[in-house]
């Protein structure tokens, strides 16, 4: 029985999926993302027996740590982020033994030589087969430098697999996204690059595909013949929370719409796939994004609204005259047979009334109403509404009309609710899912470069117009649903925002 023999003890029906033997090289190991998300996710994978026996982490940052002090730091740092999972001493000790650390400047070629030597040592001792996942939990401005360092040291190619994971933002506009891509592709080919949008790792976002393509009754109604419009909302009740300096360089359109919201839109609007395979799913998402109609400069004011909450300019690190959008609402159209003429309204903002992310599919009213008006008398209230709730109360609800109890035939809207949590929805964390996928070579939930570029192409005309414009900010009060102009944008087409 040789190395290629399958493991006879596997039981796919019972066991959770597990990562193959590999090493993870973590740049930015002293940072917030590592402490809050990555190490807790790795520990949870270890606790759940989903990490392989042959596994190791090499952390890097400029701060000098020994292996032991790095392990101690990670142990203390992750405690608040385990969300109820026990920090069991023996499991932690076994996991901690896989943690290693190399201090160094990412501009120093010696760093990559040292990482290479350590990887060779790990490959021998932990039998990782030379498989390596490079995870860049650093400032995006450092991606190209690190990729080049990896390439110069020859760490990007090996008989084992080599992969690179990067976090958004992927550029700050279309041109910089392409430039970043060129620099990454000098070292890694597209199949080796895993671009994270953690929204795609959420159970409820994956559930959209299950809902659409696992059931036969919805897809026939999923098109322009039956759907009036779609609203996608990602609202936050908090402000920039000390990230003012970063945020004012980004803004809501770049920080949320260009990536998370457009990925949700692509998931809602994509065509069915023949098989749930990485390239098939990503092809369809990318096709949808490429079908988004590009706005002409003269259309931007009618289809995009920027907002800034009152008080943003007083946040630490924020320019008192800041023109940054803390709210963005956009109307997109998709030029294909399925969606022609159906507006997709996307909005996101900070300091809105509540934290909520959902997708509302507003169906057209019945073609003929033989009954009296609904009790509310509001015509818009009558139509069917399907809401896919992403967070915090994950679930699906369908609003329809039913007879009001009593004599006569008056109708009233009622809601049929499916609560994901009520049906045992305590699933994996998004970072657990995404890390496991990257180690397993499953890129379904990662974004391909063509989708990145298509997303930038959709928002670039808005960015161009907004960059030349001087807004009369602030234009909405904290705790409200955004500027009045956003309401007017929908009212022009006879629609109105829901209160999610």
């Amino acid at each position: 029985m040789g190395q290629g023999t399958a493991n006879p003890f596997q039981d796919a029906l019972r066991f959770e999926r597990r990562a193959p033997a590999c090493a993870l090289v973590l740049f930015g190991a002293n940072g917030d993302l590592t402490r809050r998300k990555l190490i807790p996710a790795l520990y949870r994978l270890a606790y759940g027996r989903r990490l392989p026996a042959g596994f190791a982490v090499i952390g890097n940052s400029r701060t000098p740590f020994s292996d032991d002090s790095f392990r101690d730091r990670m142990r203390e740092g992750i405690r608040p982020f385990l969300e109820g999972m026990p920090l069991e001493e023996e499991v932690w000790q076994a996991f901690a033994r896989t943690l290693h650390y190399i201090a160094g400047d990412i501009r120093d070629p010696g760093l990559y030589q040292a990482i290479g030597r350590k990887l060779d040592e790990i490959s021998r001792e932990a039998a990782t087969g030379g498989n390596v996942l490079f995870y860049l939990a650093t400032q995006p401005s450092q991606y190209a430098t690190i990729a080049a360092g990896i390439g110069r040291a020859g760490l990007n190619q090996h008989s084992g697999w080599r992969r690179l994971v990067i976090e958004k933002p992927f550029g700050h506009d279309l041109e910089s996204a392409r430039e970043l891509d060129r620099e990454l592709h000098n070292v890694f080919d597209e199949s080796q690059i895993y671009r994270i949008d953690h929204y795609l790792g959420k159970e409820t976002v994956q559930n959209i595909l299950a809902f659409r393509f696992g059931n036969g009754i919805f897809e026939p109604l999923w098109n322009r013949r039956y759907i009036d419009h779609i609203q996608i909302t990602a609202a936050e009740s908090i402000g920039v929370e000390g990230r003012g300096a970063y945020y004012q360089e980004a803004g809501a359109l770049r920080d949320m719409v260009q990536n998370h919201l457009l990925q949700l839109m692509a998931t809602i609007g994509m065509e069915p796939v023949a098989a749930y395979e990485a390239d098939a799913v990503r092809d369809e998402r990318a096709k949808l994004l490429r079908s988004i109609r590009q706005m002409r400069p003269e259309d931007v004011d009618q289809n995009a609204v920027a907002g800034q909450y009152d008080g943003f300019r007083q946040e630490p690190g924020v320019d008192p005259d800041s023109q940054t959008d803390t709210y963005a609402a956009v109307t997109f159209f998709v030029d294909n047979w399925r969606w022609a003429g159906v507006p997709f309204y996307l909005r996101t903002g900070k300091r809105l009334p509540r934290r909520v992310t959902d997708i509302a599919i507003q169906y057209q009213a019945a073609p003929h109403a033989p009954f009296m008006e609904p009790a509310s008398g509001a015509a818009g209230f009558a139509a069917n509404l399907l809401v896919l709730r992403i967070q915090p109360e994950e679930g699906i609800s369908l609003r329809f009309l039913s007879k009001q109890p009593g004599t006569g035939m008056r109708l009233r809207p009622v809601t049929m609710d499916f609560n994901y949590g009520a049906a045992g929805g305590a699933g994996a964390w998004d970072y657990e899912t995404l890390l496991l996928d990257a180690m397993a070579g499953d890129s379904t939930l990662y974004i391909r470069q063509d989708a990145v570029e298509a997303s930038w192409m959709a928002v670039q005309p808005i960015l161009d117009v907004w960059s030349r414009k001087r807004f009369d900010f602030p234009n909405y009060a904290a705790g409200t649903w955004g500027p009045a102009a956003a309401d007017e944008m929908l009212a022009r087409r006879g629609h109105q925002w829901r209160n999610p």
Partner: protein
Amino acid sequence: MSELSAEAIRKELSSLWASLEQADEGVVRACSMTLVVFADERDDPAAIGRTLADLMRAHPHRAMLVRVRQGGEPVLEHTVSAQCWMPPGGREQVCCEVVEFTVGESNLGELSPILVALAAPDLPVVSWHRGARAPDTLGLRVDKRIVDSSAFPDAAAALGMLAGEAAAVADLAWARITCWREIVAQAFESAVCRELLPRIETVSVRYSGARVPPEAFYLAGWILHALGREQPVRFEAAANGGRIEGLTLGAAGVSVSFTRHDSSVLIESGSLRNCAACPDRTEAGLLSEEIGAMAREPVFLGALRAAAKLARGGR
């Protein structure tokens, strides 16, 4: 004894929901299956209640708890109630129905049409036979019957009975070793360990207790089924208290050993040394795993046959 009908119970359930819906916060009804629990009347009702409450969070269901009274006069009594909880971040309570029957062993058959009529339509039906109870469902068609062979006084008889069942059966003793199986599988992901597979000569399972528990027979049976060959197995008594204390797969001059240490398992082979969490699981956790695996499982069936054969052999 008053006449009891499914229709009367349905009306009580409707009244129950009406009263719940009048509460300040709304409630969400949840039901993804029917679970019929057969238990002895003397079983701790609080323990069963906790198990059902925990299980409902993962698998919301209509629970029909049948508490069987041994001996005495015929009896058939019932109560209806709701089990509710607030999901994390939720604004509405989630509620499931619980119908509890107390029935005499001598008139158990009277319950049969009521159970059939009360099973939630168009959803799977699972029966759980708590304690040393044969998986008789009183004529109710079920998709899976769950027992716990470790509750039976004779493991060989229990495993033999399950191996002889044609319909879908499940055993909590099997779910109890999932953690061990995952850890063994994880160790053999390593090419170094995998090379040992054709050379394995000895399989030793260490257990605690007076007799070899079904979990130990399952673990050994699963190993043999996976290796695809007959092989002698040594069962060794240990003293610590977990049902399974350890497993060693040995070849000439080398071995892979798995040793329980509190709530984790230490894996050792040559220079390889690792540790994996393997905490004790609640009854609800075990049931949840079995309910989550409704498909026919060749691995379980193969391991069950091998385990029953080992148990018949005595050691």
